[in-house]
């Protein structure tokens, strides 16, 4: 998946707010994973995925200006890459949109639960 090289699993971060992106980055790195991104918008995230598909994704749902991370979530689903959604809102249509099997975290994100999700990822190449 990551070109045959061994190393920590790679986690894509999609989050439009810098402070939060950095927070996620810190959490992911502290948990022993490599960070892909962070990306602030869908286009950047999709470009990163096409360049080198990650092993997992941490996606902020609402990217501002009425945009959501749906295209990225769809792309990751298509590639079979697991991801977790972080959102300020917990609404029914969002659950229906992404399916009940997709894990979801409410902001402010519970670090412990995010790390638990990351631990379920099989490291690349193993």
């Amino acid at each position, binding site marked *: 998946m990551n070109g045959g090289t061994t190393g920590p699993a790679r986690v894509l971060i999609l989050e*439009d*707010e*810098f*402070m*939060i*992106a*950095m*927070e996620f980055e*810190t959490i992911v790195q502290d948990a022993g994973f490599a960070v892909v991104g*962070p990306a*602030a918008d869908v286009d950047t995230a999709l470009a990163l995925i096409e360049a080198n598909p990650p092993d997992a994704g941490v996606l902020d749902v*609402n990217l*501002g200006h*009425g945009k959501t991370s749906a295209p990225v979530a769809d792309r990751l689903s298509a590639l079979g890459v697991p991801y977790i959604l972080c959102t*300020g*809102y917990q609404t029914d249509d969002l659950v229906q949109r992404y399916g009940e099997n997709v894990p979801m975290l*409410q*902001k*402010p*994100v519970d670090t412990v639960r995010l790390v638990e999700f990351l631990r379920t990822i099989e490291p690349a190449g193993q």
Partner: protein
Amino acid sequence: MTSTQSRLAALVIVAITIAAAAFAYMSWRKSQVDAFSATARASLANVDLVLDRALLTVRAVQGYYVANPDANEEGLVSFVEGMGPVSGLRALAFYRRVPDAERAGVDADLIRSGRSPIGIWNLSGEHERVPAARADYYYPATATYFFEGTASAYGFDIRSHPNRRFAVDMAIQTHLGTSTDVLTFATSGAEPIRGVVFYKPVVVAGDVIGIVSGSIDVDRLIATAEAASPDIHDVEIEIGPLELRGGAPVDTPNVTDDTKPFFVVDEQNHSGRVWRIEVSGTPGVLDYARGYGLMTLVLLAGLGAAAALIGYTTAARRGRELQSAETRLRRTLDGLVPLVFMTDPAGQVVGANRAALESVGNDETGITGQPIDKLPLWEDDAANRDALHVAIVRAAAGEERRLDVLSSETELGQSVYDVAVRPVAAENGEISHLVVSALDVSERVEAAETERLLMRELDHRMKNTLQVVQGVVRRTAHSHETVDSFENALLGRITTMARAHDLLARERWLGADLRTVVLQELQPFEQGHSITVTGSPIRINPKGALAFALAIHELGTNAIKYGALSVPEGRLAIDWSFDGDDDDRRLVFHWRETNGPKVLVPERRGFGSLLLERSITYDLDGKTDLEFAPEGVACRIEIPWERIRPMTASIHFRERLAEGAKS
């Protein structure tokens, strides 16, 4: 013509009609009266003729006896029959004067001849014949000629009759012809006959030797007069008292009575008495029909003309009323604030009110016949126009539709119209027109959008802020060795965020003025320092405001610790301006410190500078150049205007419209 004039004209026509009808009636009436008068005169002429013929006969007999004083009955009969038929006369008789000395001889002759069994006789009160009472002279009937009937009166002394004696005596005394009042003749028939008897004295050598009488049947005369025409209903004959002073008989002219149109009177003088003959009647039914027909025709023609005039002017007035109603409607429509279009069921414009015309540049001919959804009034966006088109199609099917439509952008901005499309049914129930009204509800939409934005922004901010604080705490903890410095740095940052939120809350989270953000964040660092802020007020969005607040906080914290603001003579200049053209507009912000202590490039970049450099880049797609020049710290921030311009409701509305069109 005004309605008053037309009413007046109609009145005049009615008046003329009535006058014409009255004239027609009077003419007809006059012709009727004249016709009747002629009829009556003809009838009277008949009566005259009969009377004259009868009286002439009586006079002729008088002359006969004057010439032949001793003539017997045979002589009378042959004389009368020699004159030919006489109508009107009932009987003729000759009464010979007999002196009392000759009575016995006359009696004997009468008895012997069988004419009278008692000789000369009188009529008693009981209508019985009795021998004549003693007198100097007797006037017994010695010869009679009956045109009708056979009643014999031989030997009857004429002077013994109470109703006739006066006339007889007058004839004997004056030697003039006289006549009786109207008498009732005794007849053998059931019907009594009314009549008048004329007496003519037979004077020979100044001596009255006898009397000739002629009786006339008045009823027969009346019947003759009445038979002249069916229009004559009644003929009356009155005979006046005997007046002999006038001498010769005189005919007076016919008299008509204006108060009795069909009444003609003729007065004639016959033998000392005035005959008043009254002829009355009515015109025939046909005549009446003709008269009323004429009148009706005249009236109908006149009233018809009046009705036609009134009808015409009423129609004209109604036409004017309709026209003025239309004008009123038009004025009302023109006075309306909403745009009102009238279209055919296919949505092609047939009319518009003033507001609508103004919205399309007062070009009525330009929009007439155009499909309403294709007017340049609406934003040229497929979804926008399609929504209106669908509404037109549905309304043409009888549904009322209501929708929001975006107008095209003008120098006054862009409007959202609340458009109602209503079908208008003709009398036959088919939809003949559509009324499309459009009310500019931009303000309302904007207010609703503002509220929606506010709610979204608030929610977003609330959740994110907690997350950010979590991150700030973690990062600040990582980069500060002592608890005190950690606390200060943390509190400073959190306070900055709180202040920015404060400002945004006052602006309803729609954005904030950059100058206000800058001045507010500089406040804690001022303390008598020379700070110059140059830059026009620019509204930026909440994200931009927060980013600038944090950036100024980090720069200011650094400046007050190590830079220009750490010494009294230090100076700080801040300015901002726009760069680039419309498509690529950028806000360029400068922070320049001078007159401070010599600047040393820090050995380690702290969280502050990291925040400053990466936050702007990451959140706002901008560029931050932080320069630790020896003469002073300088920072240049450049952000695409597109990323920090405040959102307006209409932009949001457009986005929503686009989303709606997709889904």
